[in-house]
C-alpha cells in the first residue's frame, strides 16, 4: 500500500503535480496484436460525479490470451473490468460513455440482453462469494439459469468443472455440504468452476489471489494458464510478478488512462514511459 502511494507522489512530481498532465503524453499506445480481438473498447469514459475514473480508453482484448490490467490501486482497472459485464449498472453514480463491443455487439446498447452478455463472461472477484447453498448447487445454479435441468447432464457438468479447477478430489465426498465451509482458497476455485459452468468465452478476474495464501494463489495461477487454451482471460492485478507469470499482453493503467501496453518483454524490459519505469522500480 505504502509503495503505491509513494509512486503516485513521485509521478505527480514528475508530471508537475498534475495527474491529468499525462494525457496525450504517450500517443503511441495502439494495439499490435495479430489475433482478432474478442473485445473492442472504444472511446470509453466513466465518470462518478466530477471525477473521471476512466479516460478515453481504447483497447482491444486478444482472443485466447491472458490480458493483464496492471497498475496501482485506484487507477480504474477494477472499474474497467466491471464495466465489461455491466456490473457498473449497480452503481447509479457512474456515468458511462463510449462503446465496448463483444463479437461486434455493443455491450452498452440499451436493448442489449444483459443475461446473455453476463453469461459470456465469468467473474472472479477479490474475495470468493459462494452462493448460500451446497457445493453442488453452487455450480448447478448457473446451469439452472441457462435452462439445463436434466439431472444427468447437470451432474456430469458439476463433476467436469470441479475437475477443471482441481477441486473434485477434495470435495467429491461432500458435494452436498455447504460451500461456506470450504477454505478460502477452495471457495475461490469453486467460484471459478461456477463461472465456467455457465459456458463463458471470457473470464474476468479482479485481483483473484489477493485474499489467498501463496499456495492457493499458485493453484489459481496454474489454472489460468491451463484455461487460456479454451478461454480469453482478463486479469486485474497490481502484483508485478503475477503479471510476469501470467500475461501474454499487459495493459499498464494509471489514473484512469492506459499509459502503455505490450508483451511482458516490452513492458518489463523496455518500458517507454517514466510512470511505468517508476512503477517497475518500486518492485513488488
Amino acid at each position, binding site marked *: 500500500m505504502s509503495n503505491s502511494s509513494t509512486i503516485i507522489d513521485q509521478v505527480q512530481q514528475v508530471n508537475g503535480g498534475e495527474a491529468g498532465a499525462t494525457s496525450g503524453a504517450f500517443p503511441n499506445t495502439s494495439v499490435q496484436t495479430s489475433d482478432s480481438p474478442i473485445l473492442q473498447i472504444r472511446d470509453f469514459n466513466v465518470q462518478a460525479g466530477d471525477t473521471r475514473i476512466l479516460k478515453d480508453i481504447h483497447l482491444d482484448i486478444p482472443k485466447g490470451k491472458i490480458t493483464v490490467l496492471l497498475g496501482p490501486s485506484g487507477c480504474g482497472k477494477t472499474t474497467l473490468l466491471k464495466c465489461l459485464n455491466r*456490473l457498473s449498472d*449497480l452503481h*447509479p453514480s457512474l456515468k458511462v460513455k463510449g462503446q465496448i463491443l463483444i463479437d461486434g455487439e455493443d455491450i452498452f446498447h440499451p436493448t442489449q440482453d444483459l443475461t446473455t452478455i*453476463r453469461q459470456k463472461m465469468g467473474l472472479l472477484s477479490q474475495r470468493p*462469494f459462494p*452462493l*448460500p*447453498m451446497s457445493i453442488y448447487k453452487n455450480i448447478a445454479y448457473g446451469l439452472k439459469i441457462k435452462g439445463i435441468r436434466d439431472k444427468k447432464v447437470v451432474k456430469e457438468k458439476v463433476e467436469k468443472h470441479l475437475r477443471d479447477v482441481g477441486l473434485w478430489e477434495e470435495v467429491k465426498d461432500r458435494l452436498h455440504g455447504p460451500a*461456506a465451509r470450504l477454505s478460502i482458497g477452495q471457495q475461490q476455485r469453486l467460484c471459478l468452476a461456477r*463461472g465456467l459452468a455457465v459456458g463463458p468465452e471470457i473470464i474476468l478476474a479482479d485481483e483473484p489471489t489477493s485474499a489467498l495464501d501463496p499456495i492457493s494463489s499458485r493453484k489459481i495461477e496454474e489454472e489460468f494458464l491451463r484455461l487460456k487454451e479454451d478461454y480469453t482471460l482478463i486479469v486485474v492485478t497490481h502484483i508485478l510478478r503475477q503479471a510476469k507469470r501470467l500475461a501474454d499482453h499487459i495493459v499498464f493503467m494509471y489514473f484512469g488512462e492506459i499509459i502503455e501496453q505490450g508483451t511482458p518483454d516490452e513492458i518489463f524490459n523496455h518500458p517507454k514511459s517514466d510512470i511505468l519505469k517508476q512503477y517497475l522500480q518500486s518492485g513488488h
Partner: protein
Amino acid sequence: MQKRKLLEEQFFLWLMRIVTLSIILVFLFIMGVIIKKGYHAMSWEMISQEPQGGFYFGKGGGILNAIVGSLYLAAGSTFCALLLGLPVALGMNVHWVTKTKFVGAIRFLLNALWGVPSIVFGAFGFALMAYLQIRASLLAGIITVTLFIVPIFIRAFDEVLRTVPQGLMEAAYSLGANRTQIAFIVFFRQALPGFITAILLAFGRGIGDAASVLFTAGYTDHIPQTVQDPTATLPLAIFFQLSSPIPEVKARAYAAALILTAIILIISLVSRLSTRRFKKNIL
C-alpha cells in the same frame, strides 16, 4: 499512561457486566412475579376450556377462547404482513437498490410507521371498519394488526438484507441471474435467519398488543368459527381480568400472562431450531 488505560478498561468491563446483569435480573423478576401470582390459577382447565358461567366471578372454565383467538389473530396478521412485506423488503434491496433516494424515502416512512403507537392503528382500524361496514371481528382485527406489524417486519428484514455483501450480488448477476432470481434465491437464503427474526418480532408484537385489537377484534367467550366472528385475545383477557376486584380472577390474569409468554417462547424456540439447518450455508 498504561495504568490509566488499564483502569479505563476495567471500568467499562464492570459497567457492561453490571448493566447486563441488571437486565437479566429485571427479566427474571418479571417472570418471577408472573409465575408467583399466576401459578395457583394455572390448571389444565385454564388452557383447555372456554369460560363457563360465572367465570368472571371466579367460577369454572378457562381462557381457551383467548388463546385460540390470539393465535388465529397473530398467525393471520403475520401471514398477511409477510405477503405484503416480503416483496417490499426484497425489492428495496435488490430491484430498486440503485434508486437510493426512493429506497431512502421508503425507509423513512416505515421508520415513522414503526414509531406510531398501536392505539392509533386501533383507531384507524375502527374508522376503516365503519367505512367497510364490518363489525368487530377476527377479520377486522387481522387487518388492523397487519397494518401495525407490517412496518416492523419490513424494517427488521430490511436491516438484515442490507448486510448481504455486494460481492454476492455481483457474483449472482455474473452468472446471468435476473433480479427476481437473486432476490428469492440468493438474498432470501443468505438472510434467512434474519427473516425468521423479523417474523418472530412481528408475531410477538401482534400477539402481545392490546390497543390495536381493543376496538377491532371485540371480545367473546367462544372460539371464532369464521373470520366474521368477534374473537377474544390474550392481552385483552389479561386486561379485563386484572381490572376485576376478585382475587381469583386477578390470579387468572397472571396465568394468562404466563400463557402468552410461553406461547411466544415456544414459537421462538421451534422456529430457531427448524432453521438451524439452513444456517450452515451462509457465509
